[in-house]
């Protein structure tokens, strides 16, 4: 990769914010108001006027239209409005990448990455469509009762677990770590609701190999992050948090219809992760803390493997509660509680937590964090990842 074509170190995070997080359908506020609350909060966190924002970046067909946001905020000069295609939560780090590239190339000065959801006001993610007729690719799966994300992705995870002899306990450890971290995070919807092995083992199956606690929540709320040029890093009270790399993609025919991608049992990160590390100029062993998107625990497991942190055959030894939590952990994982136990803000909460780890503000702060990685939306296409770095990494 040509070094003059990189976003490495060119963009910093100026501010972050999350609204109160609610269980699905319980937000007293409309979705668009939640988006505004998060954006206003991120401006306050950065110490800038909302009128200074000149770009918006989101993903997964977020309904809060940038032009309406710009009008509501009284922005003079809208310069960038970007939507990452497809992939559900796979777009979180991709939206960040699009925002960062707009700043790095001079298209915009101050871009907010955001995601807002009110699933009471609009539809639920986890429900099957209930139309009378169905056509296209869905006609090949829905009449067989295969219609939810959990059902789409369990098929991949079963194949991966069978190929590599991965045991249920490895998935359980991912869930236990998230819940343990959430107990120290007052923002977390599952704060005060701890999980142990027995409760996990006795929880109902959703679709094998996913118990209830292997599946993300469905929530209402919003999150936002403001990015600016690294030239302005010293203007803000926070220690600089640089974007070392952020990008998206997927492998050969990842989107082949009806489960026909040749490389099937994958989180879709095999081609993305090497490019991510190359741009960031770090190795997997340099990563101090990881936020890895949990739609389902099996996706986390494959994401960790495909980001080179653990070999497929080592999963049963690597994925233990001890290894994934702070004290003696090899790789502290989802330190806010993540999508399982903090909030499913379609994964953008993980990026916000990744920044907090660089700033030293996490509820489960890892010591001396220089490299903080976030992986977004495993098993969809395209997926995306990002790596934040402290000043010491430049």
């Amino acid at each position, binding site marked *: 990769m040509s070094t003059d074509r990189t976003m490495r170190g060119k963009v910093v995070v100026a501010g972050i914010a999350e609204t109160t997080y609610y269980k699905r359908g319980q937000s007293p506020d409309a979705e668009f108001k939640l988006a505004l609350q998060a954006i206003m909060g991120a401006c306050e966190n950065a110490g800038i006027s909302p009128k200074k924002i000149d770009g918006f970046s989101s993903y997964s067909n977020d309904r809060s239209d940038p032009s309406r946001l710009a009008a509501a905020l009284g922005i003079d000069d809208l310069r960038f409005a970007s939507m990452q295609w497809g992939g559900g939560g796979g777009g979180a780090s991709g939206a960040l990448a699009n925002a960062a590239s707009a700043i790095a190339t001079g298209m915009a000065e101050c871009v907010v990455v955001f995601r807002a959801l009110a699933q009471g006001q609009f539809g639920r993610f986890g*429900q099957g*469509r209930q139309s009378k007729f169905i056509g296209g690719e869905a006609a090949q799966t829905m009449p067989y009762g295969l219609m939810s994300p959990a059902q789409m992705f*369990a098929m991949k995870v079963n194949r991966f677990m069978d190929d590599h002899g991965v045991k249920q306990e490895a998935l359980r450890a991912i869930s236990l770590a998230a819940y343990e971290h959430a107990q120290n995070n007052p923002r977390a919807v599952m704060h005060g609701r701890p999980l142990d092995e027995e409760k996990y083992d006795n929880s109902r199956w959703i679709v094998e190999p996913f118990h209830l606690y292997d599946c993300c929540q469905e929530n209402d709320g919003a999150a936002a992050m403001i990015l600016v040029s690294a030239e302005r890093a010293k203007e803000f009270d926070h220690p600089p948090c640089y974007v070392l790399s952020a990008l998206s993609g997927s492998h050969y025919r990842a989107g*082949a219809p009806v489960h026909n991608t040749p490389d099937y049992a994958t989180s879709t990160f095999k081609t993305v992760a090497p490019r991510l590390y190359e741009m960031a100029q770090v190795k997997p062993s340099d990563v101090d803390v990881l936020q890895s998107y949990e739609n389902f625990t099996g996706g986390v497991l494959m994401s960790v493997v495909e980001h080179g942190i653990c070999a497929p055959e080592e999963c049963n030894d690597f994925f233990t509660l001890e290894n994934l939590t702070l004290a003696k952990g090899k790789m502290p994982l989802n330190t806010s509680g993540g999508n399982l136990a903090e909030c499913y803000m379609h994964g953008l909460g993980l990026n916000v937590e990744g920044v907090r780890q660089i700033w030293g503000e996490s509820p489960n702060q890892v010591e001396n964090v220089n490299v903080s990685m976030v992986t977004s939306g495993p098993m969809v296409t395209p997926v995306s990842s990002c790596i934040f770095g402290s000043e010491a990494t430049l």
Partner: protein
Amino acid sequence: MSDYYLNPGLAIPRAQPDGLDAEYWQGLSENKLIIQRCSSCKGWQWGPEWLCHRCHSFEMGYEEVAATGVIYSHERIWHPIHPALKDQGPYIVVLVELPQADNVRVVGNLLGDPEQPLKIGAEVTGVFEHHADSDPAYTLLQWQLA
């Protein structure tokens, strides 16, 4: 009790108005598995697309292939997310690979005990499940252990 693997009430599959998958659905109604095969390079392709991903020919034909395969992956579903399946209990969905057609895959249910053990690589045979009482009628392709 229903004659079908799953309880009635799920969405009725229909061929796309654009014609891309019409021959597939017509084939199932005639007890045939008919999927795409490139007229130029003879490669099999599924799901249906307008273009051959190998040789980029637009001359995609449809051809019958034996309804036999092997289980590539599987899942046992417990939580009903559609009201029609509220009283269904567990059911099995399999992803079946067709070695005789460049290993393309199709989705179906595995007939028999919904709590039977599941094995990747097991050989399966297709069973055409005709929903003649539906309006419009349609056919699904189910699978049973060979």
